[in-house]
């Protein structure tokens, strides 16, 4: 297996990216490119067998040497059959895809393809966020609980991120169906999130900024995958100011615009644990301004049925004062991990996926989409991405 990874790595890192720009998909491939494409398709078919969790330091130090997370100069949308929409956003659509012309036995080898239309990305002023998303995902690929971006590519008017498919669907759906999770289930999911945040913050210097049950998927084995890195940003030791997130999960410092960093994820994590246990987040009102007023005040009310450990954890995380917020204070994520509420968690076994998830999705096979909702078909009206726009903007998309 190691040899295969090595081979893949070599393959993905030669070949020029130079003349990819403005290619419209009709251009015929050179011999070399055709060979690369065949090799790359071959690797994709083997992906399932080769994937394994990398350790945090492997992911961090092996940049550019991993077989995942690369920018492909040969893959095209035309290489994939779009099977079904898995999710939609304001400027993106995620499809279940499989490589075209695959052998009968390989019908189950599927991926999620996130397609972003350049025109919409520009119109909604999300260029910077999309660049961040691609680059953060490339950097973190290989983490056991983060969606793996296998490759990225682009054509004249769209950007593509090829991701591993997570057939269990959103934690959100399970949570809403169940109304609330019991403590062991909540602890398990929360613990996997802690490992993600520990890695993103302390290894990568990345703030995720949109934690919520909608962005957490369950994989075939019942483990979590964090998806949608649209607001993720490498902040390192500098604060950042752009307001982004989801109303119920915004941290007070984001609302007040005093500058924020990775501490916002610990706040949102507290909200998430609360929502797991209670069924809805602690701050809510029909009027979003009232939500923000409550958040800034920061008074969380707990149902009496909640255990004192859970309360203590949430109140440590949802502290308006970042200099007192658990996760942000001295000791970082380790302090969260050693909180009594996580007393039963074997962190090492958890990272290595040796602990069974509380919900193992019911699947007919790896390509089953029953855990995803139906979405409206894509509208046919499309604004064109003109030559002038391409000249102005394509440089911003060159990492894809």
């Amino acid at each position, binding site marked *: 297996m190691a040899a295969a990874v090595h081979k893949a790595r070599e393959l993905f890192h030669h070949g020029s990216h130079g003349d990819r720009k403005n290619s419209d998909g009709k251009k015929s491939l050179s011999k070399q490119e055709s060979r690369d494409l065949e090799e790359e398709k071959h690797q994709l078919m083997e992906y399932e067998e080769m994937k394994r969790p990398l350790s945090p330091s492997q992911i961090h130090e092996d940049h550019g040497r991993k077989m995942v997370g690369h920018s492909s100069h040969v893959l095209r949308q035309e290489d994939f059959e779009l099977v079904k929409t898995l999710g939609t956003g304001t400027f993106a659509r995620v499809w279940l895809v499989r490589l075209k012309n695959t052998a009968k036995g390989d019908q189950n080898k599927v991926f999620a393809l996130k397609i972003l239309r350049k025109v919409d990305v520009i119109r909604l*002023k999300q260029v910077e966020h999309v660049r961040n998303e691609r680059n953060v995902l490339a950097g973190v690929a290989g983490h056991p609980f983060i969606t793996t971006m296998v490759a990225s590519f682009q054509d004249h008017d769209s950007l593509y991120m090829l991701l591993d498919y997570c057939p269990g669907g959103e934690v*959100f*759906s399970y949570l*809403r*169906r*169940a*109304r*609330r*999770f*019991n403590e*062991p*289930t909540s602890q398990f999911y929360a613990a996997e999130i802690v490992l993600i945040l520990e890695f993103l913050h302390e290894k990568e210097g990345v703030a995720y900024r*949109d934690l*919520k049950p909608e962005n957490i998927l369950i994989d075939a084995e019942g483990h979590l995958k964090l998806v949608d890195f649209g*607001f993720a940003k490498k902040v390192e*030791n500098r*604060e950042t*100011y*752009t*307001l*982004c997130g*989801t*109303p*119920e999960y915004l941290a007070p410092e984001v*609302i*007040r*615009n*005093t*500058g924020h960093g990775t501490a916002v994820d610990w706040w949102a994590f507290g909200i998430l644990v609360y929502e797991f246990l209670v*069924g*809805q987040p*602690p701050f*809510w*009102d*029909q*009027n979003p*301004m*009232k939500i*923000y*007023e*409550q958040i*800034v*005040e920061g008074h969380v*009310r*707990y149902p*009496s049925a909640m255990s004192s450990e859970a309360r203590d954890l949430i109140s440590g995380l949802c502290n308006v004062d*970042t*200099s*007192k917020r658990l996760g942000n*204070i*001295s*000791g970082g994520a380790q302090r969260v991990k050693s909180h009594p509420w996580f007393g039963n968690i074997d962190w090492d076994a958890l990272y290595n996926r040796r602990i069974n998830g*509380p*919900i193992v999705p*019911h699947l007919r096979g790896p390509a089953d989409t029953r*855990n*995803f*909702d*139906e*979405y409206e078909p894509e509208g046919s009206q499309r604004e064109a991405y003109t030559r002038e726009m391409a000249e102005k903007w394509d440089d911003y998309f060159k990492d894809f």
Partner: protein
Amino acid sequence: MSLPPDYSNEISALNREFLKAQPSDTLQFCANFFLRRLESQRAEFLLSQHHSSPQGRGMAESTFPGNNPFGTSPSGGFATGGMHRLEEEDENDNVASPTAATFAHRDMDRAPDTAPGESTFGNFGGFSNSIKSGAAPPTSIGAGAGQSFPSNYNLNRRTSVSAESLNPASSLNDNWTPPYHQKTADQQNRLKAAVSGNFLFSHLDDEQSQQVLGALQEKPIPTKGIKVIQQGDVGDYFYVVENGSFDIYVNKSGKLEAGPDGLGSKVGSVGPGGSFGELALMYNAPRAATVVSIEQSTLWALDRVTFRRILMDSAFQRRRMYEGFLEEVPLLNSLTPYERSKIADALETKKFPAGTTIIQEGDVGESFYILETGDAEVYKRGVDKAVKRYQKGDYFGELALLNDAPRAASVVSKTEVKVATLGKDGFQRLLGPVEGIMRRNDPSKAGALEDGDGVDPLAKGS
């Protein structure tokens, strides 16, 4: 004939549960299992009835395998409980927090806040105040469709929001200053009163407040019938009413429509000192209502980018200033930039009038101070005159971070001063013991500070 897949799924789930539990009473166990499954499926079905979105379909479909963690949840049949409550809650539209409704009053540690009373200036919580004065409250005024399943909480997927990218680095280069629009003292005071109830403004310091009030721009509304904002449109401005009056309409469809009834129903009105549209100061969200002038009026307008930029620039400058000051403190010069920025974030601003004793000689030191503006003087017992003067950027009391020794001198403000301060507990909470940080660049010194405690592995290593 093969068995239907649903049947096989149920049986294999039962098998798993059975193996796990290894019950002694087989029949009772199986009966319990199916009852539980039935209950859970009914719950899902009932829940799905309350979803208007495409989720509804998925919700009704049973996908739980046998190791369903909820079947045995102590909270049990939420469906029946939830459904019961539903009727009571339809009449209770002004619930402040979801928990207040989900859990009966007595279950809460603290009574829910049920007093929505606000001053005459106070329809800052959006349109909710005005709505109370109007006809039947529409349930769809909030971000999404009205949801009446327990506590009105909207159970649909939540959409992410984001504002324009704000980048402080560029603001340093292009020397941005906020727009300033002249106002009379009276106008200024009225505006101040008008925004005082809004939490977005109540956290501002004096300087920010001045800038924000200065940036409000007069907007004359020449006649009646002008739609200042239209429901469903994107919103960039927040408005305060100087004079005149406006009606507020909400169309249940979520946006202004064509035709005579396109405005929807009137839900309230707003007059001098009132304001509307404050969500636009956060991000670009669709307007929740239409506001129409009833007569010739005058408004003050403030746009989001200006507002957020004022806040950002002052926060950014303050942080950089604090980091700069911290670099000058020898005790802390081994901090990494990351640590320094954490401390800068935690520093608290305090103001003292002239003649205040900020630290008192002989007291136990708790906090350390950086002088941000103004002058201060240092006095020692037995000396008549000041022994030292402090100016902007000077710091004092830093030894309090290290030990509990009494203050060696007093520091008294000579003018009004602004200081940035941090307590020993705050410092340690963020970075751990100061001794450890000191040891980084001068191990021998740190050893000495620990009263000659020779067992310091780091000191030996040097």
